[in-house]
C-alpha cells in the first residue's frame, strides 16, 4: 500500500496528455466518482481554511486523473477572500495563478490544476448557488475540474476534517434519484440556497494517501502532538459558532412550531400523509441537530474535566 502511495506521486505527462485528448468525461456527467487527496494537500487546505477564521478563503489544487478518480497531489492558496459573494472570485487572482503555474513548470512540477477548494466557515460542506455557477463555468472550460469545500469551524468542533468534494451536472441534465448523502446541519439563513441547488451537483468519495516520507514525518509529529491535544479547549475556541448553532436551532424550532400549530388548526384529518411525513422529518432533523451540538459540547466538557483531574488535583 505504501509503495502504491509513493507511486501515486509519479506524474506521467504523456499519459495525462492522452487522457486530456480523449476526454472520457464529456458525455458522462457522473464520470468521476472518487477523489484521492494527499496528506500534504489536505493539511495545507485545512490550515489555510482555518487561517481565514470566519472569512471564506479559496485556493487551487494540483494533480492528475486516473480513470474515474481525480488525484489531488498538492494545493496552494489564492490571495482572494469572501468567495461566496461573487461568481468566479478567482478572477481577482488570475495573474497570481498564471505566475504560479509558470514557476511550477520551471521547477519541474508538471501537475496541472485539477480543481479549486474553498471554505464554508461554520455552515457545512455543500455548494451554494454561486459555487454551483462557478463550478459549472470551470467544468465548461477547464476540465477535468473538481470543487472541494472545507468547513474549518466544524472541523474543530467535531474533531475531524469536515470536507466534501463535488462535481456539477450539465445545465439541463436531470440526475437520477439518489439516496440522500450523509446528513449535515444547514443553518436557517442558508437553507434556501442549499435546497435550491443541491440537485445540481453530486459528491464524490474521498480517500487519502501519504508517501513514505509523509508517514515518517507525521509519526514524528504525532509524538509531540499530544501536547496540543491536552492543551486545546474546543469549548473555548468555538464559542461564537456554538452560540450561532443554538440560535439557529431555536429559530428552526420556532418555525416548526408555527407550522405545526397551523396545520393543527386546519385539522389533522385533512392533512395529506406526505405533509405529515415532512413535518415529522423536520422535527426529527431538529432533534438530530440538537443532539449533535450537545454531544460536541459534552465531548469538550469531558476533555476539560479530564484535564482538571490530571493537572489540578495534584498538590505538593
Amino acid at each position, binding site marked *: 500500500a505504501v509503495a502504491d502511495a509513493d507511486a501515486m506521486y509519479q506524474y506521467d505527462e504523456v499519459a495525462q496528455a492522452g487522457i486530456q485528448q480523449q476526454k472520457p468525461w464529456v458525455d458522462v456527467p457522473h464520470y468521476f466518482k472518487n477523489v484521492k487527496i494527499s496528506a500534504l494537500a489536505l493539511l495545507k487546505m485545512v490550515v489555510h481554511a482555518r487561517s481565514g477564521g470566519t472569512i471564506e478563503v479559496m485556493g487551487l489544487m494540483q494533480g492528475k486523473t486516473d480513470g474515474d478518480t481525480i488525484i489531488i497531489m498538492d494545493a496552494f492558496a489564492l490571495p482572494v477572500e469572501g468567495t461566496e459573494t461573487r461568481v468566479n472570485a478567482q478572477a481577482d487572482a488570475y495573474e497570481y495563478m498564471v505566475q504560479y503555474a509558470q514557476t511550477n513548470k520551471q521547477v519541474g512540477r508538471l501537475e496541472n490544476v485539477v480543481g479549486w477548494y474553498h471554505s464554508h466557515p461554520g455552515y457545512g460542506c455543500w455548494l451554494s448557488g454561486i459555487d454551483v455557477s462557478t463550478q459549472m463555468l470551470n467544468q465548461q472550460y477547464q476540465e477535468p475540474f473538481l470543487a472541494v469545500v472545507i468547513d474549518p469551524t466544524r472541523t474543530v468542533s467535531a474533531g475531524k476534517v469536515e470536507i466534501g468534494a463535488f462535481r456539477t451536472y450539465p445545465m439541463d441534465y436531470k440526475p437520477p434519484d439518489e439516496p440522500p448523502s450523509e446528513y449535515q446541519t444547514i443553518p436557517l439563513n442558508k437553507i434556501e440556497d442549499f435546497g435550491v441547488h443541491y440537485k445540481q451537483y453530486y459528491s464524490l468519495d474521498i480517500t487519502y494517501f501519504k508517501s513514505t516520507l509523509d508517514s515518517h514525518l507525521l509519526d514524528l509529529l504525532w509524538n509531540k502532538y499530544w501536547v496540543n491535544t491536552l492543551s486545546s479547549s474546543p469549548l473555548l475556541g468555538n464559542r461564537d459558532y456554538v452560540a450561532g448553532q443554538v440560535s439557529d436551532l431555536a429559530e428552526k424550532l420556532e418555525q416548526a412550531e408555527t407550522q405545526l400549530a397551523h396545520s393543527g388548526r386546519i385539522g389533522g384529518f385533512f392533512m395529506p400523509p406526505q405533509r405529515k411525513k415532512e413535518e415529522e422529518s423536520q422535527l426529527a432533523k431538529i432533534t438530530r441537530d440538537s443532539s449533535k*451540538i*450537545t454531544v460536541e*459540547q*459534552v465531548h*469538550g*466538557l469531558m476533555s476539560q474535566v479530564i484535564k482538571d483531574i490530571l*493537572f*489540578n*488535583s495534584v498538590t505538593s
Partner: protein
Amino acid sequence: SLLRQISSLVRRLPAIDSTKFQDDFLMEYNDTLLMTYLAT
C-alpha cells in the same frame, strides 16, 4: 539533573489554582449540563 527537572515539573502542579478559574470552569460545566438537559 534529571531529578531536579522532575522536581521542578512536579512543583508546577496544580496547573492553576485560583477562585476565578474555579468560577469560569464551573460556569462552563453548568452551561454544558444545561444544554444536555435542554437537548434531552
